[in-house]
């Protein structure tokens, strides 16, 4: 086995899982780097959990292979895989103390008692839970239980750490704090981590790379920034953040957008292709001005349809005036720079939308 083969911590090769006739996971290929936090992101039923459970060994793949550090684990039961999981419900053993919970996995390896105690102390220190070592899980708060669950899944120094909806059982306020903290701990340990989540914010906060899943397939893999700024399909564009989509077509290298007045010019970063597509614009990349003369390109007029004040920014819905896109609602985010707004908008006020050519994302329309 040469080094090139083992540069990935996890290799998923053409992996499929069928339940009866339905493909929960459909021909998935993934390569996950060592020490990387990798998020599987998708709605419920997209197959992300099934994929995670196959990595852990709880589900047997129908087809394909899983390699961990270059070695296929297809025929290893979960108790023989160098993989540990932090369960969504944490699955802490209620009849054992924090210490016993963490020592459980180490005991299965028949380590000497002194070594077990040392390792338990070490991981408890990592999650700052030394004080609670003799508590039972029921005597801990949700956040504390999560720390113990993380410590337990790190105790055996797994080659791969799995997180199943890590923030699913926490309230919203605690989530943000724990997302960063968890990511920091995992990075400091240097363990390769695959997490499953339906929360895009969570994936973007914690993960180095994200795979967007839908109907058992991987739609796009990339860094959070890549996926947000360069979505490769309508689905990923809509799944991550909000986006305005306008039907368009490219013929002979010329972009025509029927739903926007005037000419739309896209930046060079977009892929070159022919045929039906979408012009996609993120709401925060659209400028909003009071009525004025329209520019020749990348500009549209409309009226304010709806305003939502969200504190950090306003979400303003603009109804387009002329052209085939008439009546279409465009979402615009306007930051609140100043406490006393210098420019306010009223309902039905005529406005002008404009955007830079680099803000334009061209997405090839899905095949009919």
């Amino acid at each position, binding site marked *: 086995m040469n080094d090139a083969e083992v540069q990935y911590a996890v290799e998923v090769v053409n992996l499929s899982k069928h339940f009866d006739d339905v493909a929960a996971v459909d021909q998935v290929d993934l390569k996950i780097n060592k020490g990387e936090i990798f998020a599987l992101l998708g709605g419920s039923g997209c197959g992300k959990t099934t994929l995670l459970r196959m990595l852990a*060994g709880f589900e047997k793949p129908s087809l394909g292979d899983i390699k961990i550090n270059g070695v296929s684990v297809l025929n290893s039961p979960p108790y023989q895989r160098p993989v540990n999981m932090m369960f969504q419900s944490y699955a802490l053993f209620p009849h054992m103390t924090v210490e016993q919970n963490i020592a*459980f996995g180490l005991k299965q390896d028949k380590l000497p008692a002194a070594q077990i105690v040392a390792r338990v102390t070490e991981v408890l220190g990592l999650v700052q839970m030394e004080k609670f070592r003799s508590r039972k899980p029921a005597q801990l708060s949700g956040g504390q239980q999560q720390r113990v669950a993380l410590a337990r899944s790190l105790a055996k120094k797994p080659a791969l750490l799995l997180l199943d909806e890590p923030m699913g059982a926490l309230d919203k306020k605690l989530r943000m704090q724990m997302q960063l903290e968890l990511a920091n701990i995992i990075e400091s340990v240097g363990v390769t981590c695959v997490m499953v989540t339906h929360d895009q914010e969570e994936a973007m906060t914690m993960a180095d790379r994200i795979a967007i899943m839908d109907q058992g397939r991987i739609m796009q893999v990339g860094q959070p920034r890549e996926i947000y700024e360069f979505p490769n399909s309508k689905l990923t564009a809509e799944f991550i953040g909000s986006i305005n989509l306008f039907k368009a077509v490219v013929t002979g290298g010329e972009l025509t957008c029927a739903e926007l007045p005037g000419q739309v010019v896209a930046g060079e970063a977009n892929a070159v292709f022919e045929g039906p597509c979408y012009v996609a614009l993120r709401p925060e990349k659209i400028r909003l001005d009071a009525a004025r003369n329209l520019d020749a390109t990348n500009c549209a007029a409309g009226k304010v349809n709806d305003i939502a004040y969200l504190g950090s920014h306003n979400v303003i819905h603009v109804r387009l005036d002329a052209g085939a896109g008439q009546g279409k609602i465009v979402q615009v985010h306007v930051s609140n720079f100043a406490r006393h707004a210098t420019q306010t908008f009223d309902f039905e006020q005529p406005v002008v939308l404009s955007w830079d050519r680099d803000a334009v994302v061209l997405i090839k329309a899905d095949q009919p």
Partner: protein
Amino acid sequence: MKGVFAHKFWVVVWPYIWMLVFFALPFGFILKISLAESMIAMPPYSDIWSWSDGHFTWLGSFDNYRFLLEDDLYYLAYFNSLRLAAVSTVLCLFVAYPMAYGISRMEEPYRSLFLLLVILPSWTSFLIRIYAWIGLLKTNGLVNHFFMSVGLVDEPLTMLHSDFAIYLGIVYGYLPFMILPIYANLMKLDHSLIEAGYDLGARPWKVFLTIILPLSMSGVVAGCFLVFIPAVGEFIIPELLGGPDTLMIGKVLWQEFFVNRDWPVASAIAVVMLTFLIIPIYFYRRLEMKQLGVGE
């Protein structure tokens, strides 16, 4: 508000009324009779106090209890009952646990079906089902017929009227009482705990011993009490399936009451039996309280 409090009062008081009428009161009578003397009269025992000329005289005595200690018949009967009940409870547990576990892991239509099948025999009278075992176990019964026809034995086995038949009867008769609490407990068990066990490197048998079994312990203990307690005082099974020399306290009690018509001694036997059974229940309750973290 008043209505709510009144409602609460009745919710709590109802079990007290039930226990008073159907447990405390009858037990008081039995206790009273156990302190009296046997008499040929109606009722067949003496008073334990008298009240005449404003003068109270205590007539009761502990002679019956002393008598139970003197004759080793009672001592042996108690011991034998506890032994038979303990062994059959353990046997019952070994049969019931895998069944309860299997049923709890089944998919839905089968789970309900098997649960129904576990309870179904109880729809026939207990007495009739024990009688049926006589037909199966006797020397020229079905079981012996089968064994001889397949050449397993040359001569019929003596199975009826033995301790073996009693164990069989108790395990058969009380199995649902063991299965149901264990099943209820295993159904509550979060499956991800089992997966976590595997995930941390424990083999299936280890997962069972360190996670599943300890977490279903309260079901096991409840099932054991539900089998052990009635088995100690069991009368029908040793009478029908046991040998003539099988000494069980239920049989002795029946003899004292109906054959010897010695109500006070029979009552004393019952009181002692109850005491024997209350002790383990008391310790179990204390253990349960400790596990729940009450009074820590």
